[in-house]
């Protein structure tokens, strides 16, 4: 099947002023590749502040003016140009943002879902969408500040899917929700994918991502270090990259082991593998070029990967 979205070798950097008029380039995302097929949930997992939200903004064409983008974006087989982004966003490609702060605070929920349209068809559709997420018709008359956290999240999904999109981008859709509420919200994204759309789930929560995703890309210091089937995360032996293995060991139910150090800042990454300074298996070669390559049923950015689906 033709993929809905293909991201290949995407890099995003920012131009910053450093001491007076000296400009510098700050790389935030480097060499990111990702493919989403219809009916699939692809998760991008990385710690907060790692720049993963910028991926969503790049696809929608809403990066700030000082951002610089390299690499290729293709949507349904054709390049995603700024013009196409503008035409598609809000209709075929939609964003479910993090919180109710993205809703217009002075507009009631109903008109926001209908995007200002007042005809009968729009009305019945907005009611239908709300009902689908367990929200009654009275919700249309509420202002955003009157919604609870879980309701606001469902309203955000409603505004996104009212247009029957083909690609839904969810940016951290569950923080602050308890496990059951988060599970319900994620279930809605699974349903959207099962209905034939592609879903890109951007989150810091690996455990939650694994409950609905088909494929998972793990982000470290602005780079994808491993891309694998969600099922591979059930077994340590299948994981390919040392960072992914370290994440697995750090899960409270799997030993709760930490490793020293932290992720490097944008612009302060070491040459070669960004994880090498913390990696137990690092060798001198890891300071050189480390390509992103296929390995045993997934993708990995490591010279000495382990595991894979052949194990």
């Amino acid at each position: 099947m033709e993929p809905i979205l293909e991201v290949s070798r995407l890099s995003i950097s920012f131009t910053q002023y450093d001491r007076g008029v000296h400009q510098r380039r700050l790389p935030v995302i480097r060499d990111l590749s990702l493919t989403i097929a219809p009916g699939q949930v692809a998760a991008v997992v990385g710690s907060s502040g790692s720049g993963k939200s910028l991926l969503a903004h790049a696809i929608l064409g809403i990066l700030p003016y000082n951002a610089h983008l390299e690499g290729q974006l293709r949507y349904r087989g054709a390049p995603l140009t700024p013009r196409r982004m503008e035409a598609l966003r809000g209709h075929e490609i939609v964003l479910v943002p993090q919180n109710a702060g993205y809703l217009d605070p002075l507009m009631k929920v109903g008109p926001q879902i209908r995007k200002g349209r007042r005809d009968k068809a729009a009305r019945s559709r907005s009611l239908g969408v709300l009902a689908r997420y367990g929200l009654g018709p009275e919700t249309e008359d509420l202002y955003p500040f009157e919604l609870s956290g879980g309701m606001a999240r469902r309203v955000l999904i409603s505004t996104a899917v009212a247009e029957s999109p083909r690609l839904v981008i969810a940016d951290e859709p569950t923080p602050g929700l308890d496990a059951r509420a988060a599970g319900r919200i994620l279930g809605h994204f699974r349903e959207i994918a099962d209905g034939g759309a592609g879903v890109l789930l951007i989150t810091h929560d690996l455990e939650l991502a694994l409950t609905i995703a088909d494929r998972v890309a793990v982000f470290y210091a602005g780079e994808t270090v491993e891309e694998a089937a969600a099922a591979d995360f059930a077994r340590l032996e299948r994981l390919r990259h040392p960072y992914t293995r370290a994440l697995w060991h750090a899960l409270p139910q799997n030993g709760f082991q930490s490793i020293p150090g932290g992720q490097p800042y944008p612009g302060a990454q070491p040459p070669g593998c960004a994880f090498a300074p913390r990696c137990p298996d690092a060798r001198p070669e890891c300071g050189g070029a480390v390509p992103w390559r296929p390995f045993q049923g997934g993708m990995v950015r490591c010279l000495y990967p382990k595991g894979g689906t052949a194990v």
Partner: protein
Amino acid sequence: MSLEAQRLSFHYPRGGHVPVLRSVSLSIAPGERVGLTASSGRGKTTLCKLMSGYERAAGGQVLLDGRPLGTYRGFCPVQLIWQDPAAAVDPLLPLGDTLREAGPADPELLRALHIEQDWLKRYPAELSGGELQRFCIARALQPGLRYLLCDEITAMLDLIGQAQLWEFLLAEAKRRNLGLLIVSHARPLLERLCTRIETL
């Protein structure tokens, strides 16, 4: 000898007198690590605020060693670490000044928390959530501290950062015989950390 919440009730002034907490009791002994879990909106954070003196209960009382918490002067022996560290520091103060507001910063402690000297001159906007959270912990760990209330304090960290922070806090709590209240949605985390788990 313990921190005791006795039949606490609370409602927010504009909440139409709908109680957030109704007659909730909880006690923590020194050296104990109590887990607290509940669905969203059940008042976990409110209970933390009451037990650390940020809000006053409408009914019931908070006792530290049998004496109302409000009668202690100076550095409060019960400290709360907030879920969002960015909201718990002054955005216009360099972090070194924020630390000093609670008392002199112990260099040994800063080293153990991996707080770099250079960060003391920075403003909150220049550090990540995980780094700010370490400042909030350093600020709370004054010599007078007896009980530490941790409200979802690692929710913004990656799994490795979460394990790192708890490794440090558990060792510190053990060394100083602190009582901990650990609030989290994550059951496996609480099972790993706590000596007992309560549901609100």
